[in-house]
């Protein structure tokens, strides 16, 4: 039964280390929200450095060299994913153009 004991010891150590990782994550969870509120006036953007030029998958309030607006007519998006998503909905406000179909004039 020697081998199973050695294996169990190795597994036990690894699970202990995993527990240690959870403890480390709990201790180092970062700045609490109530302290971060004090910096509210300094944070015009909640963007922690994400950089992508796709239109609708980046911070809408950021002005950036790769901005969500084209620099010339017909310019393709730098990142194809920008065309994969439509603008997000904002309840109560129209964010998309909706065309109504014309009334049908003909025999039913």
């Amino acid at each position, binding site marked *: 039964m020697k081998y199973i004991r050695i*294996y169990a010891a190795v597994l036990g150590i690894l699970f202990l280390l995993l527990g240690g990782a959870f403890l480390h994550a709990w201790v180092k969870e970062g700045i609490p929200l109530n302290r971060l509120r004090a910096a509210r006036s300094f944070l015009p953007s909640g963007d922690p450095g994400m950089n992508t030029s796709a239109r609708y*998958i980046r911070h809408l309030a950021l002005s950036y060299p790769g901005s969500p607006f084209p620099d010339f007519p017909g310019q393709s998006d730098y990142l194809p994913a920008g065309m994969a998503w439509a603008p997000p909905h*904002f*309840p109560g406000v129209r964010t998309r153009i909706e065309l109504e179909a014309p009334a049908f004039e003909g025999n039913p």
Partner: protein
Amino acid sequence: MKSFFYLANFAIRGLMRRKIKNISIFVLFGLIVFLFSGIDMMMNALHVQALKALEVQPDIIVQNLKAGRQLPIPMKDAEKVKKIIGVSKVVPRVWGNYFDRYTNANYTVVGVSCDNIHRESARGILSLTRLTHWPLKKREVLIGEGVLKARYLAVGGRLQLERADGSPINFTVAGSFRSEVSLWTHDTIVMTDKDARDLFGMDKAMAWDLAVFVPNPVEVAKVGEKIANVLPGARLIAKQQLVRTYGTSYGFRSGLMITVSLACLLAFLILAYDRAAGLSREEQMEIAILKAIGWETRDVIQMTMLQSLALSLVGFLVGFLLAYVNVFVLGAPVLRIALTGWSVLYPPHPIPPVLDISKVFGLMFLTVIPYISVGIVPVWRSCTIDPEVVFRR
């Protein structure tokens, strides 16, 4: 129960008989788990930090758009929005991006009206920064660590910026942000409202956007509708939109990388199946001997599954722990660039760790179970061969 332990002991002894093959499988398996869990941990941590920052953002941001491009918004629009029922506060913001041609970096310059900040917030600000006094005086700045390093500055030093016409403005560095907020303030320069207007050449009657605070989250949509009626043509960005946009963005990036890594996982599983299917003469003899001495097919399959479980469980834990250390202790240098994008000024500190037990089990299910499963059918096929046929070969 005792017989199970004897079986497990026998299974592990079987693994030790083919050390090199099993070590190579263990290393490959650990590598795949390392890749998958590293991507997942990194994305999850970044997403949590982004959501944390969004919590303190205004409920609605109002921007002035003309021909689809953003322009400064008149301050009198803030008065119109303030009158809407449900709005508790409207803050016209003066901020922007400043390109520093000496370091090729973009800084985020934020103008703060110190009079609007309460004493409680002022105390909070002092705890997050290395400032000795608040409010900031004229031509004083509070800067992030990235700006300090990029410009080789220290507190009390001089920071020179340029207006749009090229004329210089000199500022004194009054303090810097602490590293615990560096994820959001690494490239930030905070100054008084008046100094920011002077730097950007913005008129007193204009602001860059309006930050609207609505205490009741249920009323946000209705307030937005009313703002749109009062300011037609303005772009409204609700906090919830940003929350969803970030979710999409982070999900897209991590999904892309995981999809690519899925190919590695599939290749590994095919390799594992091939290994199980192409048993060597020695392994076939082993199974034949076990069958000859009275082992049933299900006992042999059980033993094989225990071997796969023993190998994959240790491989998973080692891969996962190494990924944790790589992402949250070392800062994941290679993965970070691929997942967060390029930036001249990016905080070097590791991201605060976020671990979710459900993700650990999910990842275990995604990797360990398939590995155990691929070995069952090939072993069963070997068991169906008559031991005598194997002995006579």
